């Protein structure tokens, strides 16, 4: 990916962020908005949780597959874990867990 494409995509994201910010302020201003810094911290926390959940899901998955292979005549490929759904569900898992944890 060239620098031009990178700038183009970053500009798109920047534009929609500013539009969302302006629209929210005009149409439905939040009663007590947090700071951008707080939001970025929440993003980092989510990323950390995502890494933990993804690693845990992959390790558990590999262990279960190796156990099935060892204890039954059934063959399950380790490539089963190479699935986009694993990434999406781990991300959702991290998001929900973080929201629950913050509300506590």
């Amino acid at each position: 990916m060239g620098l031009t494409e990178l700038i183009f995509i970053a500009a798109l994201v920047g534009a929609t962020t500013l539009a969302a910010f302006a629209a929210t302020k005009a149409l439905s201003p939040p009663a007590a908005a947090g700071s951008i810094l707080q939001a970025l911290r929440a993003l980092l926390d989510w990323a950390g949780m995502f890494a933990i959940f993804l690693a845990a899901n992959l390790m558990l998955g590999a262990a279960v597959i190796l156990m099935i292979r060892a204890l039954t005549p059934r063959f399950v490929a380790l490539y089963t874990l190479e699935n986009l759904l694993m990434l999406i569900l781990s991300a959702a898992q991290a998001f929900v867990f973080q929201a629950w944890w913050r509300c506590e």
Partner: protein
Amino acid sequence: MRVWERIIRCLGIVTVAVFIIIALTPAGNAVGRRFGVASGQLKRADAIVVLGAGVMPNGVLSEQSMRRAIAGIALFRRDMAPLIVLSGPGRPDGVNPSEAGVRAKLAIAMGIPPGSILMEETAKTTREEAIHIANTLRPRDATRVLLVTDSLHMRRALRVFERSGLHVQPAVSDDYASSAVSPGDRLWLAMRICQESAALVYYKIAGYI
């Protein structure tokens, strides 16, 4: 802030940094080039062995399987060996032909004589492929093989085939470490490197290589 909250945030910083480095810089490509195996100067061998990479439920070869099959067929057409072994099991449902069967049809359509094609349809792992194919080739006095697989899989495949007693020349079907330039491709490359590294560790611990 509690200690484990701090740990999670630090892990988050590392995750985001690693994501940016992998997706937006050529660092992953450099690692991929070091990890992957390149083809050397290929010499004529006794057989070309094309490893399996999956067939879809509708009987269509996966992209990797197709790439490997074409690379193997091209080697045969260059007269690099008198035999070609096409590997790949059937799907568990058993409805469609095996991956090896689909590849054999393709090879025949591309002008390879059916008598020069051997199929390995039962092996489900790289290690099983090595054992079964070595057992098939040995009675034919075919011990020098050109092994066709992708560059990242080659390191493990090479070791396990050499362990089975064959003399192997790597003939890679791609140069993914150099061609991955979009963020998506680079992330996929990083995932494949992690996957193959884990598989190498597993094979080492299990004593397969």
